[in-house]
């Protein structure tokens, strides 16, 4: 029996290379676990039928003496990242039977290392949401408490890692879709600097915000996946390389900025505030200097996000028209084909955002909304640049509270407000990570309590700082 609960990518690598167990043994252990738990949790939309064959190929390579960090490591992939020959539906009816005709760059890189793909994970339809309640194929349940959401939009990937249904997972993060579910499920989730991991083969939502990100149980594993999938890619026109941003100086002592105004503001749960304050004390003990910072336009970030994102999404989703792939509904003429296909294929939240995006981009409102949001985005970028002249990292809680009850946030604005801490990193384009910061007791919740996360943001290109602070913080958790 392989102890999946305490297994990490690093430990599995050592065991595979030492032939303590084979990649097939490992894959079988995960398939068994998935069989036991997936029905209840609804983490995987599909478990691939060639998992053991993939594992066999990995074993053959291991037998030849090959070793890559992810060779034979079972991973879960969000349903909006393409793997050639496999279905990729974005948890939408409009792509329910779509089969990808090429590999995303991140997938191609994982394949090169011989990683094993277990299956595709549930998500909010087209990554629009923070809870997977917007999936066309049912909600993913939180492994810590099945009456609660796993967070979203990459809820399936986060829950898969938390419930030991994979060793690591890919998600995507447009406004917090990796970090929020990581926080809700109690795992590590990271979004890189915009452009650091190629978006080629990731279904676009908000193109200027979208990032592929990764989930793992700890910092070391998170870094292993990041190292495997990051890097310049000619197939992504917004891809960056090591020279895009100035190199950060090696410093012995790091300063962490905290926008206390926002953290202690309205709408943030008291338990979250307490947990965060404790984290800051621990970081101080670890030798970090904590500094209060004020970012004037931080409170406007959420409005900025909920203008830019739907504007870009409404443009990107125009391509799903039932003509070249995906669902097709037959009408009397071409226009009717479009309308019926989109009407039948898109869920409620997706329609809402498409219409909202069309509205903020329409002639009469463009200047008041989209134009203004673009200006606010620049202001925020400038303010972050200034902030990072005085501090090395910025810390906030990842979420306002613990995972909410399924069905609790039925009106859209109340769900949008949950993104308050996470959207800024996407607007500005900086890397950010959510790290488990302990369990808190909440009235009406399970006895063990529910997980919370702490978020760190670093300057552009500063992923190494996130790993550094993360590993130190993890050591005292």
């Amino acid at each position, binding site marked *: 029996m392989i102890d999946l609960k305490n297994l990490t990518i690093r430990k599995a690598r050592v065991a595979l290379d030492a032939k303590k167990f084979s990649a097939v043994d490992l894959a079988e252990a995960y398939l068994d676990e998935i069989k036991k738990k997936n029905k209840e949790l609804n983490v995987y939309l599909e478990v691939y039928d060639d998992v053991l064959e993939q594992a066999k190929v990995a074993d053959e390579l291991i037998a030849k003496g090959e070793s890559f960090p992810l060779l034979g490591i079972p991973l879960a992939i969000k349903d909006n990242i393409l793997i050639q020959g496999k279905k990729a539906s974005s948890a939408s009816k409009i792509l329910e039977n779509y089969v990808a005709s090429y590999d995303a760059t991140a997938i191609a890189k994982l394949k090169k290392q011989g990683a094993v793909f277990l299956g595709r994970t549930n998500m909010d339809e087209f990554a629009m949401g923070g809870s997977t309640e917007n999936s066309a194929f049912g909600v993913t349940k939180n492994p810590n408490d099945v009456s609660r959401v796993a967070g979203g939009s990459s809820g399936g990937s986060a829950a898969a890692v938390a419930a030991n249904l994979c060793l690591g997972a890919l998600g995507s993060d447009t406004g917090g879709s990796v970090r929020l579910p990581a926080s809700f499920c109690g795992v590590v989730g990271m979004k890189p600097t915009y452009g650091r991991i190629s978006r080629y083969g990731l279904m676009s939502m908000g193109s200027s915000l979208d990032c592929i990100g990764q989930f793992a149980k700890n910092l070391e594993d998170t870094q292993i996946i990041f190292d495997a999938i990051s890097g310049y890619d000619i197939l992504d026109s917004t891809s960056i390389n090591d020279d895009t941003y100035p190199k950060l100086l090696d410093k012995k002592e790091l300063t962490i900025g905290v926008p206390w105004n926002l953290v202690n503001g309205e709408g943030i749960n008291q338990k979250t505030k307490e947990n965060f304050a404790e984290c800051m004390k621990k970081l101080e003990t670890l030798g970090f200097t904590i500094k209060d910072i004020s970012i004037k336009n931080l409170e406007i970030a959420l409005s900025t996000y909920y203008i830019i994102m739907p504007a870009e999404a409404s443009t990107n989703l125009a391509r799903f028209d039932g003509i*070249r792939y995906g669902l097709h509904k037959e009408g009397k003429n071409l226009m009717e084909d479009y*309308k019926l296909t989109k009407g039948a294929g898109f869920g409620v939240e997706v*329609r809402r955002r498409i219409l909202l995006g069309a509205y903020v981009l329409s002639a009469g409102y463009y200047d008041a909304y989209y134009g203004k949001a673009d200006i606010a985005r*620049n202001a925020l970028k400038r303010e972050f640049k200034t902030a990072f002249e005085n501090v090395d990292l910025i810390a906030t809680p990842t979420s306002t509270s613990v995972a909410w009850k399924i069905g609790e946030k039925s009106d859209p604005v109340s769900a949008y407000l949950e993104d308050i801490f996470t959207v800024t990193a996407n607007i500005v384009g900086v890397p950010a990570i959510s790290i488990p910061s302990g369990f808190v007791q909440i009235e009406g919740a399970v006895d063990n309590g529910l997980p919370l996360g702490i978020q760190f943001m670093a300057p552009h290109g500063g992923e190494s700082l996130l790993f550094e602070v993360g590993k130190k913080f993890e050591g005292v958790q």
Partner: protein
Amino acid sequence: MDIKDVSKLAELARIELSEEEKGEILKDMENILGYIKQIEEVKVEDEMPEYNTYNVWREDEIRNENSPEASKFSAELIIEQFPDSQDGFLKVKKIL
């Protein structure tokens, strides 16, 4: 915003919506717009939108089909995804 605006947007976005759903979307949109109108408070005197536009595409070039950078797309895989096709072509209804 009123129900006519929702109909107009749905028409532009080519999404078939029932009257009932239009009503629901109108309510949601009013709430969302009520929230995002905070954007009006942003002081913009010293801010200009920045359009950092430059050509990110490479120049066209002819590539040997055996080169590692040649396209690995398979026409078969793409055609298989067409809802309707004939002789390897995508079939659509009359456009004009």
